[in-house]
């Protein structure tokens, strides 16, 4: 049994895991890159060790160094968070071989679900429906894929077998554009996962992306914690999630049916710890297995809000060999939770990443608001890691109340120094289609535009005009003042002397 945990991650998730450890009375060890010496996770942890230079390949992806630090510091377990090494079965195996506990699933489960080809084969053998696509787990060449494409049917998706988070993924409408997109997908997959292998999957249009959170202990108990709605995405990156899903709503039968299938998929790979099964759900409520994320998810807090279960603490308890403290019938979803991912991306400039020093930050607070973040005023947002600045989570009794609360919280949110996608979230919260729950995975890219949304908002150009004019005026006055200085009658040397004395 371990009493000290090394967190092999950075940013908000490292802080989140440290908090869970603290509440459980466990000591924490942080690791950091040269760019993160002053990061919050380093400041919060009991111990912290340098990994190496800023690029992740020389720091957060150095599994060997991380295990070495764990052994040296006397940590008994490693929590990988999400991203980086979280879904690398070889790393999980090395952790176990070093005599440490890996707070996550077994390496064999990671491997089985990590290769999307094998995952599709395994779960469909267990009777779980999968999205039609190329079968088998071998590497296919571009020529083979081009030949198979018409059978899959257009539009289709090129997906990285090692993939996740939308990396190495491309939608194809016509076969003519496929060679170029194959190349782009392979290039991105190679850069992100060190593996350029891809497969094809039918693009189910008008579908929703709904996922089921599961928890499994080492004693064979597997429960699901209900669903999360994750359809609002851009370039296959989730931007906003909610629990429950407005599409599932009060259809308890559908929820339990999806939950049961998710449990079955997890059992097919003898899954242990926290995991998420992603489904595509069509408008007739038929659903297909998309993939399983064998780790903690970014959006886990909304499930925590509606179930009252602390998923990170449960992960640690499971890794310590404990039984789940509840059964399926104890799990109830009450109320409504929404999470907005606040990214350093300028939503008014095509979501271009924005880097820089956070000069000023005032986070929303008050009833029903939770903010998970790893940044603070003075912290530098660097180009080396992902753009997530914080997760803003609200919880309320009903969906309508949650939306109103999120609007209020977004308005309170002040962050100066980098541009963010907060205006995007504000426009979504005002969108009638969002309010009515009528959206699918293509809503953001195909039916939503910032310009149009801006125009539909209650607009106040007069106030904007007055404020800009006053700022411009102040600036003009200031520069005029500087020019006037040279007109002073005393000599410059005398003036300089006085000025220096004044500032002494």
């Amino acid at each position: 049994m371990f009493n000290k945990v090394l967190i092999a991650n950075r940013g908000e998730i490292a802080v989140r895991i440290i908090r869970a450890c603290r509440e459980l009375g466990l000591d924490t060890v942080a690791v950091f890159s040269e760019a993160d010496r002053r990061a919050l996770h380093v400041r919060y942890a009991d111990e912290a060790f340098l990994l190496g230079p800023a690029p992740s390949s020389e720091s957060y992806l150095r599994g060997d160094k991380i295990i070495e630090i764990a052994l040296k510091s006397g940590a008994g377990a490693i929590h990988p968070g999400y991203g980086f090494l979280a879904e690398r079965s070889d790393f999980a195996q090395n952790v176990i071989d070093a005599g440490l506990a890996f707070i996550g699933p077994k390496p064999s489960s990671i491997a089985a679900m990590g290769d999307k080809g094998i995952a599709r084969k395994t779960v469909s053998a267990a009777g779980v429906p999968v999205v039609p696509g190329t079968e088998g787990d071998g590497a296919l060449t571009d020529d083979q894929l081009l030949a198979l494409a018409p059978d899959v049917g257009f539009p289709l998706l090129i997906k990285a077998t090692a993939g996740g988070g939308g990396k190495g993924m491309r939608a194809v409408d016509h076969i003519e554009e496929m060679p170029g997109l194959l190349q782009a997908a392979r290039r991105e997959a190679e850069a992100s996962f060190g593996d350029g292998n891809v497969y094809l999957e039918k693009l189910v249009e008008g579908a929703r992306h709904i996922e089921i959170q599961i928890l499994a202990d080492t004693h064979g108990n597997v429960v699901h914690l209900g669903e999360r709605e994750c359809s609002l995405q851009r370039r296959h990156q989730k931007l906003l999630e909610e629990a429950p899903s407005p599409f599932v709503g009060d259809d308890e039968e559908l929820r339990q049916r999806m939950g049961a299938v998710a449990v079955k998929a997890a059992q097919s790979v003898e899954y242990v710890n926290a995991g998420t099964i992603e489904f595509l759900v069509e408008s007739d409520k038929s659903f297909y297995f998309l993939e399983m994320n064998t780790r903690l998810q970014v959006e886990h807090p909304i499930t925590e809000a509606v179930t009252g279960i602390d998923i990170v603490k449960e992960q640690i308890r499971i890794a310590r060999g404990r039984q789940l403290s509840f059964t399926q019938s104890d799990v109830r979803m009450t109320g409504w939770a929404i999470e907005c991912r606040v990214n350093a991306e300028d939503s008014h400039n095509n979501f271009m990443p924005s880097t820089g020093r956070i000069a000023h930050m005032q986070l929303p607070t008050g009833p029903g608001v939770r903010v998970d973040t790893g940044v603070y005023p003075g912290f530098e947002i660097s180009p080396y890691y992902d753009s997530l600045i914080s997760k803003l989570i609200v919880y309320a009794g009903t969906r309508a109340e949650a939306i109103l609360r999120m609007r209020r919280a977004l308005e309170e949110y002040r962050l100066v120094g980098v541009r963010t996608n907060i205006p995007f979230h504000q426009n979504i919260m005002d969108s009638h289609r969002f309010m009515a729950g009528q959206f699918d995975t293509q809503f953001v890219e195909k039916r939503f535009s910032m310009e149009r949304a801006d125009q539909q908002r209650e607009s106040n150009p007069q106030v904007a005009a007055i404020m800009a004019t006053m700022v411009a005026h102040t600036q003009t006055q200031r520069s005029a003042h500087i020019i006037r200085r040279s007109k002073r009658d005393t000599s410059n040397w005398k003036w300089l002397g006085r000025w220096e004395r004044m500032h002494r």
Partner: protein
Amino acid sequence: MKYITTIDDLQYTIEIIDNHQVIFDGVPYEVDFESVSGQPVFTLLVNGKSHEAYIYDDDDGGWEVLLKGALYPVAVVDEREHRLRAAFGSGPTQSGEYNLKAPMPGLVVSVLVKEGDQVEEGDVLLILESMKMQNELKSPRAGVVSRVNTKDGDHVERKHLMLSVN
């Protein structure tokens, strides 16, 4: 001082007497305008109504005002300059070179054009990776690539001039 302030096709005449009095299209208003501790966050009280906005210099002589989630591009010119511009046409024209500057620090994944290439509006010029995302930077207009200042694998700083289209 009197200013002509434009937002898209809306034009206002705003005279600033001091920090507490403005005349907006001929109507005087009592205002209270403050910067929040030196940040680009400003608070404005007009007739008791409280407004807060981010105001950025857009690097192009104009302003961007982010007010309640909506972004307003604002052009402010003083009356004298406005008269001059009206007399001599609409100021600088849109000809000349387009300089593609790095919008953020990052890694040049791939330069897709070379000097002398003919490009169309919307053509991808290069791919810049930042924050684990690959961003396609496109040409805003047709032209000929006159200069390429970077190559695959380069790390560039923000505002680094990467290439030009003539």
